[in-house]
């Protein structure tokens, strides 16, 4: 997976297996958590420098690549964290380009979800007949069987904010992510609460 956004958290912890770095970047849809463990020692020196930079008050745009790691909390909540494999400090244009591309892909998935919800069932043939793109059939079928009915409106808010930010309607991405995310958070929480009532999962 790939995420990008404004750095919001960054800290070092010493563990039995050596130093571990954890952080989070914020984009229009919310917070994305990541960590750098002992299996990536070549990143540790750079992480030390970034921690110092962050603790001095600097805020920067960061792109992160890694593998997703899901876990369940003690109270039954479901969390996703990235095991970072590589990263880069990026500039505004790179971040804005990423926002536009991600907005396009997100709307494609939302459109496919709308078609899937009109299908007679969630099996592959029904989804194909409903017009769901071939590469999204398997994942959508699994998601609909697991989550049931789902309202994507919260993600549309994120798409609108991402496009506005990419079009230069914000002075500073750092300020934008800090202020505008309040609206996205509210929408996402409403969607998540509605979903959790239906599925029994809690966030």
């Amino acid at each position, binding site marked *: 997976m790939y995420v*990008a956004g404004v750095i919001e958290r960054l800290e070092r912890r010493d563990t039995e297996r050596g130093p571990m770095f954890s952080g989070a970047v914020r984009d229009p849809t919310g917070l994305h958590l990541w960590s750098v463990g002992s299996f990536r020692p070549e990143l540790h020196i*750079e992480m030390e420098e970034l921690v110092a930079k962050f603790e001095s008050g600097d805020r920067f745009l960061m792109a992160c690549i890694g593998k997703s790691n899901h876990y369940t909390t003690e109270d039954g909540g479901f969390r996703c964290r990235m095991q970072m494999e590589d990263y880069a400090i990026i500039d505004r244009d790179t971040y804005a*380009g990423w926002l*536009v591309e991600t907005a*396009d892909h997100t709307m494609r998935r939302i459109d496919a979800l709308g078609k899937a919800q009109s299908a007679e069932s969630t099996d592959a043939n029904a989804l194909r007949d409903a017009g769901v793109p071939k590469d999204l059939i398997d994942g959508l079928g699994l998601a609909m069987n697991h989550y049931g009915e789902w309202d994507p409106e919260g993600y549309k808010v994120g798409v609108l904010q991402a*496009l506005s930010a990419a079009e230069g309607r914000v002075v500073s991405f750092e300020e934008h992510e800090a202020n505008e995310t309040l609206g996205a958070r509210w929408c996402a929480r409403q969607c998540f609460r509605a979903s959790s009532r239906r599925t029994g999962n809690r966030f």
Partner: protein
Amino acid sequence: MADLRSKMLGRKYTFTGRAMIDGQGALLMADSFKSSETDLAETANEVREKWGVFA
């Protein structure tokens, strides 16, 4: 490598050549490789028009 990563990660490129894909991912054997940055405002507007998402 860090300098190369900082210059390239997150940016868009166009390449021609071959791709070898297995369970570990994709390896690109490029014959040509160039930046393909586009006008952001124009691209964002295309996305809006394509999906009907307007503020």
